[in-house]
């Protein structure tokens, strides 16, 4: 079986700052890969490289290869098409200053969906998948910015789902959310596993333990260790992993 995503000796630089050092890993279809590591270890840079959000950054340089379904995302794919297939949910809930409906419909409209009933279906499906539908179905026309933080983050997930990606990248999706909202977001991720491949960057190691199938540990731009979550958390190969997980770090 070929993996969904394959990263092959990836190096990333901003100006002359070497942010990712020779990272290689594979992500299987329908798995949740958790990525943990202290601040500045290159987690966000890694995600942004995966869907080429770094293309706009003049200081960004890289070498190495990334394959999506065995196709090189840099040489064999257009950035726009790639981003449609690999969606991203950002650290802070980033609702656009539009209504709830228009936030979710933003992506499908970009890609040419104009049919009103189709859009309604898509929006409903997206909101249901992130468990937000029941909370907002009566006020789809109100500004998204009036929702609570947790609701907004689930809205962002719905918005990403609405363009029907294959892979979803989360960059610390629950930072700043209360435990109940966090639980709801995590539940949504577990349910989405059926249809999506997910990569979850988190500052909260316990979150990775709760939802990820496998966990990777990044430190100072290096991939220290990757393996089944249970193993990484109970019998890590590397002492640094152990130190980080048990909180003996920095």
């Amino acid at each position, binding site marked *: 079986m070929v993996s969904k995503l394959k990263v092959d000796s990836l190096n990333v630089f901003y100006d002359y700052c070497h942010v990712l050092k020779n990272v290689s890993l594979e992500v299987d279809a329908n798995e949740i890969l958790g990525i943990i590591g202290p601040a500045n270890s290159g987690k966000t840079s890694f995600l942004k490289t995966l*869907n080429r*959000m770094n293309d*706009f950054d*003049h200081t960004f340089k890289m070498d190495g290869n990334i394959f999506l379904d065995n196709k090189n995302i840099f040489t064999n794919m257009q950035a*726009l*098409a790639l*981003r*449609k297939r690999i*969606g*991203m949910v*950002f650290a*802070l809930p*980033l609702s*656009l*200053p539009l209504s709830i409906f228009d936030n979710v419909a*933003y*992506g499908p409209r*970009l*890609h040419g969906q104009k049919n009103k009933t189709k859009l309604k279906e898509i929006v409903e499906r997206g909101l249901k998948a992130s468990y937000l539908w029941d909370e907002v179905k009566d006020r789809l026309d109100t*500004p998204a*910015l009036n929702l609570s933080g947790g609701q907004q983050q689930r809205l*962002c997930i719905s*918005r*990403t789902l609405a*363009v029907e990606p294959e892979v979803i990248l989360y960059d610390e999706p629950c930072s700043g959310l209360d435990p109940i909202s966090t639980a709801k977001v995590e539940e949504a991720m577990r349910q989405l596993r059926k249809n999506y491949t997910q990569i979850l960057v988190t500052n909260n190691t316990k979150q990775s333990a709760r939802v990820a199938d496998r966990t990777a540990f990044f430190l100072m731009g290096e991939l220290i260790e990757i393996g089944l979550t249970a193993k990484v958390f109970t019998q890590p190969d590397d002492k640094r992993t152990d130190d980080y997980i048990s909180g003996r770090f920095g």
Partner: protein
Amino acid sequence: MGDPKKIQKLMFFLLLLATIIIIVPVVAIFAIILFHGLPALNWGFIFGMPREGMRAGGIFPTIIGTLYLTLGTMAFSLPLGVLAAIYLTEYAAENWLTRLIEISIINLAGIPSIVYGLFGLGLFVMFLNFGASILAGSLTLAIMTLPVIVTASREALITVPKSFREVSYSLGASRWQTVWGVVLPNAIPGILTGTILGLSRAAGETAPILFTVAAFYLPALPRSIFDQAMVLPYHIYVLSTQVPNVPAKIQYGTILVLVLFVFIMNISAAFLRAHFRKRKLW
């Protein structure tokens, strides 16, 4: 020399005095204009044609001329200025071309208005053969207003959070789709405010329109963009220096109308800004 506290008191008093010397004339000017101009304002003055060699009657053609010219200026400078600002904020890399554009804009802002008048005369009136016309005048004023609109639009575009753009790109949007979908809608209040302010300045300008559109005496409304037109600021010039024995009432009335024209635009810009600031969510 003396107690520092006393020196401070004296200096602050002098600073205050200097400020008063600047501000008091401003107030006085408005008082003079209102005091002498208000009695002139009535329907006949605003909606009437000038009569008796502009020494009586109304100033309707000059109001309409100024209105047309302002709208014409906007028609050219708004799209051009906004697109230029979009180029600078959303597309341009940090390179020599961008720096060259920025320097050009700064220098455009500093070119004397009479030089714009000369340029308009040379290019639009003579070379392109538009003649002295609303078209030529609008184009001249549009070029003069361009730096104001570009600068204001740039500021408005820059204040749209970067994260909005990232969200849009992450959903597969192209650059233009992002600009159109999330950047422009959130920058429009700032763009409009800046544009109105720029236009209000253009509406009060005399030098650029002297040879490109302004008619000395033309008691009829313009019928096409190729017509000459009477315009408020030039009319004030005519009434105060070119025609003898114009009643002060007519002079001040005309001035008051121009000042009102300009201030209504300024106030609506301020109102717009306040309105959107209150509604702003991010």
